[in-house]
């Protein structure tokens, strides 16, 4: 009965890919992440207190040992984490770009304004008589 774990892992991986391609960061994602963190802590505590339970779940899913199940889960979690990190870095890069652009444009506008004033000053004394 390795089928169950196979289905679970494939679903996990496909969802990771969908997350990579589709999702944009939002408040609900943050909520989901926080719920998952709390769940992970609870599951961890249970697994530490009753080590046999992990093995029992592993057997039920068609995995040989509890440690193997833990490893499979870890791989999926690491993948989701790196996708999430990648997306966060893209968002940050865009923010940085927007900020740097505003800075460059502000400097350019300032230079233009200064040049305009200088041109005005230059033309006004001699320009009066014309």
């Amino acid at each position, binding site marked *: 009965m390795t089928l169950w774990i196979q289905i679970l892992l494939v679903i996990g991986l496909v969802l990771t890919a969908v997350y990579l391609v589709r999702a944009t960061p939002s408040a609900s994602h943050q909520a989901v992440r926080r719920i998952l963190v709390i769940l992970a802590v609870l599951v961890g505590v249970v697994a530490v207190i009753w080590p046999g339970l992990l093995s029992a779940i592993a057997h039920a899913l068609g995995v040989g040992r509890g440690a193997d199940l833990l490893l499979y889960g870890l791989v999926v979690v690491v993948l989701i984490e790196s996708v999430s990190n990648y997306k966060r870095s893209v968002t940050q890069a865009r923010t*940085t770009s927007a900020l740097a652009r505003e800075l*460059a444009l502000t400097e350019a506008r300032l230079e233009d304004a200064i040049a305009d004033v200088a041109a005005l000053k230059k033309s006004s004394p001699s320009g009066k008589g014309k």
Partner: protein
Amino acid sequence: MTPPVKPAARSAKNHDVWIVIPLYNEAPVIGGVIDELKKEFANVVCIDDGSTDGSGAVAREHGARVITHPINLGQGAALQTGISYAREQANAAWIVTFDADGQHRIEDALGMLKLARSKKLGVVFGSRFLDDRTNPGWAKKVVLKTAVWVTNRTTKMNLTDAHNGLRVLSVEAARGINLQQDRMAHATEIVVQIGRTKVPWQEFPVEVIYTDYSKAKGQSLLNSVNILFDLIVN
């Protein structure tokens, strides 16, 4: 800081046109490119994208208006900065995007402008694949054709050359552009956003001059993977 060079709008031609050049480490060639452009265009804006070889200073010496990114952001980001700057200028009617490495011909830019003015187009895209003057070599052709394929799939516009740096935009069309892709995928993104503005557009046959210099700096085959990835991943 050196005072910016104000364009002599009365003496030069095409004073309603702003040439926008993303500039990153092109010091050996940018001077010549600006000199050529200055013969026909009063307003040449270079966006120095954090160059480390003094490209910005060279461009300024040759009479271009230089806007400096405080850090290197990528070609797409530089293009957006240039478009943002040009479209807020009081006398701007047209924006021409131009590559810094000297691969475009001024005659093509003039031809595209003429077409845009006479047919009241919003955008004219330069294409190197409308005639057989340009021979990019097979590797480059694979990259470019991949980009075209992706672009046409995502935009339902039917372009023959998506990653050509020579484009003419009306200021109205330029107002609809807000590039997020900082790296090379911006060339597809710009087409997507123009498609959304529904302005009339046309392609124009241009020749791309591959010098040894531009060949050495050109896109590698692997970069088409990057372009695809940036476009697919949200």
